[in-house]
Each structure stands twice: as C-alpha cells, then as structure tokens.
C-alpha cells in the first residue's frame, strides 16, 4: 500500500493506526456491524449510513454504535437475525426470570447448544449468518432445552410472557398455538420456540 513502518512495537502500532483510518476499513467494519445487528444481507443504505459515521469521525466506535441504534432497519419487523445459541439461551432465561443460581450450568448449556462460551473458533470467531446456526440438530437442541426450561416457568401465563418479552413482534399464530397447548409448560415452549422469539 505504499507505506513503510518502523520495525518493533512502535512500528506495529503505527501500522494499526494507519489501517484503522482507511476508508476500506471503515466500509468493512460498517458492513460487519450491519450484518451483526441488522440482517445477514443488510440493506446498502444501512451500511452506507454506518460507513459515513466512521469516515467522518475517523473511526469513532461510540459514534457508530449510536448511529446503529438509531437505524430504522435495525428495529423494523419482522426481525431477521437468528439468535445465536448464547443469545437464545440468555433470552430464554431472561424471559423466564431464571434465578441467579442457574448460571452455574450455563457453560455446559452453551456447549450443548453449539456455542461454547470462551471457545470461539480461531481465527474467525463465531459465524454471523443464519445458516451457520440453523443446523437441524442445533435447532432441535434449542427446542429440547427450551422445553426443559419451560418446566421451570410452569404457572406463568404464556400469552402474558409473550407480550412482556416480544410486545408487537409476537405473531398471532404463536398466540393461537399457545392458547391451544395441552399444558402451561407446552404453551411456554411454543412461545420460546416460535420463529419470532428465535430472532432479534
């Protein structure tokens, strides 16, 4: 790229600083952020908006994060990002207001669900596309795990819980299926395994 840097640590830092200030880096980062927070194939306008912030602020991550939150496309239903296993695990536990003691078993759970905490594959880290997380066995494990967790939530009303955690995102089909379920636990399982609950 026509640049020369000193040998040693100082040179390395200078190289990183230079790279961080490149337009190509800003575009790459904008695209990765949009893929992670908006959609697997994000709308070009969303990528452009994030890119513009990074370019104008010379790579201010705080500023781009604020712009991300303000993006309409990040919030507009239907949400399309499939929750990765750990996101899904957290969402279920929060929805059921699981007690703090439950954290002890979560390392195992994250492994069972296919995203072992602290063990992301090097060097690329966790994948970020639906197809990477939607393998049949992986989805089946989520469903089975959710059924187990729903047992803890017995006594809760599934429709109330769905409204509390998903609000306007909840689909009428899900509420209908939950209302016809054979038990409170099965109703909760249906809410927790609905397509919209598995999205973010």
């Amino acid at each position, binding site marked *: 790229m026509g640049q020369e840097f000193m040998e040693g640590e100082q040179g390395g830092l200078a190289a990183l600083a230079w790279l961080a200030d490149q337009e190509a880096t800003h575009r790459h980062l904008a695209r990765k952020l949009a893929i992670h927070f908006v959609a697997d194939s994000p709308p070009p306008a969303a990528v452009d908006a994030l890119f513009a912030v990074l370019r104008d602020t010379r790579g201010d991550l705080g500023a781009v994060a604020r712009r991300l939150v303000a993006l309409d496309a990040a919030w507009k239903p239907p949400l399309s990002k499939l929750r990765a296993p750990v996101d899904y695990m957290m969402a279920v536990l929060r929805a059921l207001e699981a007690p703090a003691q439950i954290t002890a078993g979560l390392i195992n759970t994250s492994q069972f669900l296919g995203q072992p905490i602290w063990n992301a594959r090097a060097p690329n880290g966790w994948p970020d596309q639906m197809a990477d997380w939607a393998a049949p066995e992986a989805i089946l494990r989520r469903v089975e795990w959710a*059924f187990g967790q729903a047992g803890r939530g*017995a006594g809760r009303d599934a429709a109330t819980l769905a409204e509390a955690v998903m609000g306007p995102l909840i689909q009428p089909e*899900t509420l209908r299926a939950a209302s016809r379920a*054979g038990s409170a*636990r099965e109703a909760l399982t249906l809410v927790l395994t609905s397509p919209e609950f598995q999205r973010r």
Partner: protein
Amino acid sequence: MNKAHLPALGRRALLLGLGASLALPGVRLAFAQAPGPARLVVVLLRGGLDGLYAVQPYADPDFTELRGPLALPEPGREDGLLDLGGRFGLHPRLSGIHAMFRENEALILHAVAGPWRTRSHFDAQDLLESGAEQRLASGWLNRALAALPPPPAGRAAGLAIGTTTPLLLRGRARVDNFMPRGVAELPPDLMARILDLNARDRALGPSLRDGVRARGYVLETLGEAARQRPAPGGQFAVLAKAAGQLMAAPQGPSVAAFELGGWDTHAQQAARLNAPLAQMDEGLVALKQALGDVWRRTAVLVVTEFGRTARVNGTLGTDHGTGGAAFILGGAVQGGRMLGDWPGLAPAKLFQNRDLWPTTDIRSLAKGLLRDHLRLPRAAVDAAFPNSGETAPLGGIIRV
C-alpha cells in the same frame, strides 16, 4: 359450578365388567400386609386423555355409531381391543396395563371427572392438582404428606420426578425434585405443534423437519412411518424407572408424582395417540419393574384433567370434554375390575349433549387412596381435599 348431576359418589360404584368380577382377591391376601410403608405414585396425564379411546365401551349400543373411525375392532379381532371383562376394552398399546389387569393389579375407572366444568387445560389441571373447586396455593398430595409420619432426617417424604415440582406436590411439606440425566425428548404431539408453528419460517422450518427425522421422533401425523424409538417408552419410561428405583429404597419417599403430555388430540387422534399410549404403558411397566418387591405395597393413580368430546370432530380428533377414564395400578390394589357407574352414550345421556356424563368424582379415588392406602386419618383426608364432604372416599380400592 353445577354438580347436581353427580350422584352420591362411592355409594354407587358398581362392578362394570361382569367377567372380571371373577377376580379372586383372596389369592393375593398373603401380600396384603406386605411389610413396610405404603407407596403412592400419582401420574398426571396433561392435555386431556380421551377416556373413550383408551378404554372403549365396545358393548355400549351407541358406541360404534358415536365414535365411528375412533372405535377399534372388538377383542379377539385383528388389532382389536384388549378385553376388560366383556363390556370394555383397552387400547392395544396398553398391553402392559392389561397384563396387570389380568393379574388383579389394575383397577380401571370410567366416567370419572373432577367437580370442575372448565374446558381450559390450564384451569382444569390447576384444579386437579389443587384438589378443590378453586385454585389453591398448594397441592392435595403435598397436604396429604403433612399427615404422614415424618421422614428420616434429611429426607423428604415426597418426590417430584421431572424438571419442576407440579402444583400437586407444592406446599408446606418438603418435596425433593429429581430429573434423570439425558431426558430431553419432547412429547411427539408438542413437537408436531412446534413444527407447524415454524413451518412458515424458511430456515427454521426445514431445519426442524430434518432434525426431527434424523432423531426418529414418532410423528405419524406428518405422514411419516412410525420409527423405532431409541429407548422403548422414551423419556417417560426413564422417569418412571427413576421414580421406581428411588421409591424402592428402604428410606425412599412415600409419595412421588410425574407426568406425561401429548394427549390433546384435536386432530388425527388415532395416529397421534399411539406414541403417548405406548409410552404410558411402557413407563408404568418400567415403574413396576423398578419397584421390585415394593410394588406389593404400591398404588399408582393415573389421572387426566378432563375427558374429551364423545363425538369425533371434523379433523378425526376430539375436543375438550368432561367424563373420562382413570387407572389405579399396583400390587396393593384390589384390581382386575372396572369400576364406575356407566352413564351410557345415548344422545340424551351425554353431558351438555357432547361429553361422557361424569358419574364419579375424581376426588373420591384420591380420597380412597389416602384413607385406605396411606391410612390417613379422616381429618387429614379432609385437609387434603377441603370442602369435599359430599364426595365420600371410594372404598375397596386397596386389598385388605
């Protein structure tokens, strides 16, 4: 709640199966005083088991016309019912329970219901577990525990098998909770509903279908051939076996409860019930085997929150109803008999012109078990089932 149609229960508990009345309780007399404390297991069938399908009144003149495609061939014919004494027959998947019946260890009751008349699963299950006509904060089985001799230090008198303690066992008395490892399989019917709900999703729909196929879930309603399950009886048998092993221990719990779902068959009932019925049967056989000698002082009450509509609906299923079937199994049980006051299936005999008319209050079964099996004093039975004075304990369940 209208319960005017309930006769004085217990008084009219009739022998329904004439052939079965030849059962010889005396043969078992030697076992009646089996040493050691009594064990009581309650199995909750969540979702509303169709009693008319599991226990078919094949000799009732209105049965075949009313049930049409859900009436199975009579006993002795190919894939026919398993006879229960000439008037009733068990679904062929319940062969283990039938063997217990023939060994005088199974009592089968028909036209049973709780005092509630709600058609909501959630409400009816809460009331079934509360043991009352309104929802209580504790379950009848927990309240019954309070009257038992205190368990050894550090032990609980009651045991809930599963990920959660059902309302039935919640309350003041300490109850342990146990979940065998590796039990994660869902009831096939619930899995079918989850598949339906996700079918419209372009990623999750196909993934779930493939996953379910690979695992060999029995989903006959999806047009797939039934597959051999990895473990006979599936997770319910694992739960039942665990319950039996824990209760067989010398200082094991006196009382345990666990549950089985998959009974809410609004559509394609004949196909959808095969798996749950087989699971229930294999599980109860596994429970008996795991209990070993302790089976002789055990009674198992198998109940559901309500029966289902007497007529078959437009999707070859049945909807939430009232009267249904219940089972009491065990070496301590004076079995080999059908009990209940059969109301008949003529249109005028149906409750609200749609359900089997309930003639036995489900609480009378439980009260009979508390009084005669756990030998609780009257005050304790009344505390377990408050405001049930009009519902006398059903006598004659337990060998004397």
